[in-house]
């Protein structure tokens, strides 16, 4: 019985949300407010039991890890926002969060977005085996394999050139930057198509739920 009630609720709320495709209406508003309110409450409870309790309350008060007094104090300072007279105190933990994460991210970004990318791009531009393959067995795939390495090197180099901000994109430099934009746009086009396919599969999943689980039509 509970399962049937659940399926009916899910189906009706799905229709309420899909009614947005027509225009804003009371059914959408109801589903939207329910979604926002329920999820906000869910995340509040989730945050307490999965973040606050196991990472702060239990180790501090249960196991006496006194070092955790520092985040506890920072957390209390953050809550001071609720009291206008001492609200300025919350700027300190905010400054700590922004400063510490900026510093931390400098290293991770430099590693993953710069050095590792450069390392992965250092390949011989002429892959002799691939070219031999192309001449012995001409075809689209062997051709693409042969030109893969130079395309990657040119794409990465001109892509980085596009993101130069302190030099005007004119002349030869501007030409390289334009090639970089072409590479970016082709990559975005491929990504667009790939992601749209994933979104359509989500829509198919929802339609299947309505037609199969709810209406038993398929």
């Amino acid at each position: 019985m509970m399962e049937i009630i659940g399926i009916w609720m899910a189906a009706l709320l799905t229709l309420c949300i899909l009614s947005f495709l027509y225009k804003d209406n009371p059914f959408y508003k109801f589903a939207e407010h329910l979604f926002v309110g329920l999820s906000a409450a869910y995340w509040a409870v989730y945050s307490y039991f999965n973040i606050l309790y196991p990472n702060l309350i239990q180790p501090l008060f249960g196991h006496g890890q006194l070092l955790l007094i520092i985040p506890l104090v920072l957390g209390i300072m953050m809550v001071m926002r609720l009291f206008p007279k001492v609200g300025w105190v919350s700027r300190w933990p905010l400054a700590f969060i922004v400063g510490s994460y900026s510093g931390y991210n400098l290293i991770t970004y430099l590693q993953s977005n710069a050095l590792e990318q450069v390392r992965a791009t250092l390949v011989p531009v002429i892959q002799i085996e691939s070219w031999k393959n192309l001449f012995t067995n001409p075809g689209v795939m062997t051709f693409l394999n042969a030109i893969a390495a130079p395309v990657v090197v040119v794409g990465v180099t001109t892509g980085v050139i596009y993101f130069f901000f302190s030099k005007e994109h004119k002349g030869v430099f501007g030409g390289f930057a334009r090639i970089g934009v072409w590479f970016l746009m082709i990559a975005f086009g491929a990504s667009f198509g790939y992601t749209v396919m994933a979104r359509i599969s989500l829509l198919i999943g929802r339609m299947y739920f309505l037609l199969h689980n709810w209406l038993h039509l398929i």
Partner: protein
Amino acid sequence: MLVAGINVEAFEVLSSSEPPVSPTEVLAKDKPNDAGGSIIVTWRKSDDDVEENELVKEYLVFRSSALDGEFELIGTANKGFEKFVDGTTIDGTQYYYMVKASDRVLHSPPATSEAVSSSAQWFHSGRISMLVATVMICFLILWFIRKAKKGKELYIRPIAGLEAVDDAVGRATEMGKPIMYIPGIADMDDIQTIASVIILGRVARKAAQYETSLLVPCCRSIVMSAAQETVKEAYISAGRSDAYDADKIRYLTDDQFGYAAGVDGMMLREKPGAIFYMGTFYAESLILAETGHSTGAIQIAGTAMPSQLPFFITACDYTLIGEELFAASAYLSKEPLLLGSLKGQDMGKAIIIAILVGGVILVSLGFTKIIAWLATG
């Protein structure tokens, strides 16, 4: 044949074979470049450990804190392996390791290591390239900040999306509609959100000057706090502290699609004249941008999420691609500190291009050591 009631012949089917030959050269050493608590044990395979037979099925690794003490089994390694990492050691305590080859019935005589203890290292020698890169980038940034502070004019090329920011605020003002600023769905630990909050300050200052209402729906409570502080500061610096309304910078929910549903509803009811999407976005990007587009608002987006950029490019009037989002704060404020930082980063990119071009030539000529030099550990 029966001995004491046991069928000895049947027993010998299982255990009649000789135990495997022992592994040799058992060495134990502290695991390098770690925070302690680990010892690596290596050995040379047993002579019986070959593909053709099953005389050795695994290696048993034992540990003791005294050579003549009791050895405890701490783990196994499969046939063919010559290494085991013990990640349960206490730094400073001496351990002896013993390795036996086994066919899961009979074990070889043990081979024992010398005493060894684990310790933490201050420096990770495999990450020297990271240290060099970080020091170099920091030096370049500080160098150009110093130059900018001394009054040297630093050029920044026009970025269409950023030049349109003031126009978008002006357009919303002329239409008598509010501005909506969406700072993404990530928390303040994300560098894109930090960049977004900085841009929000600039947008808020313009909105305050033009006396236009600014709505900032947030997906994270910390982002809401940071956004409130930033907008308040901007209103004060524009001399319009009276117009600041903290309730317009509100938290909706942490849930990705709950947030998208809430923002969509706000868009349709508030009908903003300009919408900014700056920060980290995932699958909600197109849901938001399409709804914003349907309201007729001018839309400017900026993100470094490669999978979401195509959607913003499709549905928005202007899009800041990746690094352009991080350059926005310098571009908009023209502050020497930020301009110098941007110039320093550009020099870093120039070095990266030089390494790329030079590296590819060297690798093509067979000099592949450069790849190892760039390893980040």
